[in-house]
């Protein structure tokens, strides 16, 4: 399969008055064309920072991002316009990512103008109507309304319509459903899956909800404190996860049926919280919370081991 996006040893450090925050600390992965790649982990593990670097909200400290073999490890303003057009983003909280007092037509119409995708102002209306229909919102009801009048699910659909307005190839979905209730979440996920089929989109899906990941992603990378600890195809990861952190995440998922309960790995009770990225523990970053930690985990950082095709894990105990 074609590799659409390749990320190599990507790092992002932020200077703060308390010291250096190592938000992303050397991660490597690739995303194939047309697939859904999920990045999971707790808050503070660097998932969103990774997404933001790919969109170009800030340049990486070191490392490279390649999009269709072009090096794009710079801020979006320095990237060629045809590439920024093809990478779009949908944020977690639609209420704060859409201007509450602009008309929906203007919100979705702005990217069209920025990228010169329309010739005159009458065309805007037509295009926006098509886009709204695309996300299953009747245009005549939504075109001249403002985000403050709408609910979470509708707003997220509008954020998706805005991302689609430039005919992107890759969409970064930064926790698109975590602010929504189950029914609205199901609606939005269904919409995203339909759109993916229709427009042959590639998704980078950032989330901490593993049950959603199981249903839509083809490959998963688990992140902890700025590092990827395990990467595998979804089914492989769910059946044979090897890293204790992945196991902890899995065993914390609340489930509603017996079949699901049997799928969960051996119970690892969640203890402690993710440490601050200001003072990253030496050795394996997870050893402070790991029930299996040994002496060498505290000093020696584990390297990535290939278990079998596409399954990579960073743990001393996975042999």
């Amino acid at each position, binding site marked *: 399969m074609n590799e659409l996006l390749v990320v190599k040893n990507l790092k992002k450090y932020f200077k703060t008055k308390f010291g250096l925050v190592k938000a992303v600390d050397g991660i490597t992965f690739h995303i194939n064309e047309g697939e859904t790649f999920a990045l999971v982990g707790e808050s503070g593990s660097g998932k969103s920072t990774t997404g933001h670097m790919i969109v170009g909200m800030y340049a990486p400290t070191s490392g490279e991002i390649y999009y269709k073999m072009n090096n794009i490890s710079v801020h979006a303003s320095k990237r060629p316009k045809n590439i920024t057009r093809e990478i779009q983003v949908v944020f977690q909280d639609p209420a704060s990512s859409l201007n509450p007092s602009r008309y929906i037509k203007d919100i979705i119409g702005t990217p069209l103008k920025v990228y010169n995708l329309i010739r005159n102002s009458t065309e805007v209306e037509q295009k926006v109507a098509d886009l709204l229909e695309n996300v299953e919102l009747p245009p005549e009801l939504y075109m001249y309304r403002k985000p403050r009048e709408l609910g979470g*699910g509708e707003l997220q659909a509008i954020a998706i319509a805005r991302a689609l307005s430039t005919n992107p190839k890759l969409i970064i979905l930064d926790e698109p459903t975590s602010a929504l209730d*189950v*029914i609205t979440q199901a609606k939005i996920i269904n919409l995203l899956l339909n759109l993916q089929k229709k427009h042959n989109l590639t998704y980078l899906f950032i989330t901490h*909800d593993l049950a959603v990941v199981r249903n839509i992603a083809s490959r998963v990378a688990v992140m902890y404190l700025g590092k990827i600890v395990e990467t595998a195809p979804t089914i492989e990861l769910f059946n044979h996860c090897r890293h204790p952190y992945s196991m902890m995440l899995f065993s914390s998922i*609340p*489930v*509603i049926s017996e079949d699901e309960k049997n799928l969960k790995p051996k119970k690892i009770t969640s203890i402690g*919280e993710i440490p601050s990225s200001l003072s990253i523990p030496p050795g394996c970053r997870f050893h402070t919370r790991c029930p299996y930690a040994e002496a060498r985990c505290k000093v020696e950082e584990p390297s990535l081991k290939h278990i079998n095709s596409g399954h990579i894990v960073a743990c001393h105990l996975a042999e």
Partner: protein
Amino acid sequence: MESLLRVEDLNVRYKSYRGELKVLDDVSFEVKVREKVGLIGESGCGKTTLLKSILRILPPNSIIYKGKIFFKNIEIIKANKNEIFKIRRENIGMIFQDPMSTLNPFFKVKDQLYDALRYSVHNIKSQQDLQQMIIKLLKEVALSDSERILESYPFELSGGMRQRVCIALALTRSNDLLLADEPTTNLDVTIQEQILNLLRELVNKRGLSIVLVSHALGMVKEFVDKIYVMYAGQIVETASTDKIFSEPLHPYTKLLLSAVPRLTGRWKAEGLIGRLPDYVNPPPGCRFYMRCQQSNSNCKIKPKLLKLNKDHSVACWLYGDEEH
């Protein structure tokens, strides 16, 4: 078991510029002593309104149109200020959804806990006494680094720690009942599990009753004994937890369960058309009627919550035909 809290035919409305929003519609609800009750339903279906009316902390534009709330034989709606204050101070505690906006960002955790304790507990003799009570309280919610936490402002703590402080605040005044309004919504799964274990332990140790409001169904399933399903301000089904998950009856309950992503894969949520009705002019019959795929002409008349057996009631014309 003895009944602790009983809500009877509660109707709550909000005044708005478009007219009255008829949110709660004949809600009846019961919590027994030491019982764990779950309340589920999508956003905007009146779960929080119900909890707030129990404590009488509804916003000023609300009207309690009809209904009664009994807490240990006290009629909460008719109670005078002193009685209400006493209940808030000694009997019922509430954990709110967003720990960031519950805690005041301008005051240290210490000061907020001091205030809560001074308000609820009367026999405090000295400053040391108070200090000790606070440290004991923080230990109970598994916050070990108590000195640092007491001296911090809320924004200096992580989401999980903030929620633990909020639980501690609620514990200062709940000797009988804890109302938990989506206590884990904004937290990671790992922290969510920790908070739930903590709540379970506290509730069992102190012998409290709890009402857990959430739309994370997996979490509710692991926690509660009995579930009320709410849609658009009406209770549509109530049963023991096992019954709700093994044999859901109301079409809305079935829809809600089908929307939960499964670990087994092959998740396909179907039939999710439409949205909550407009509360200014809600449909006269069953409020779920417009979205229901099994609706018929009967549904324009409001179904009663019909008791099918000892612990399963449902408000739907598909069940128990003529008795409505």
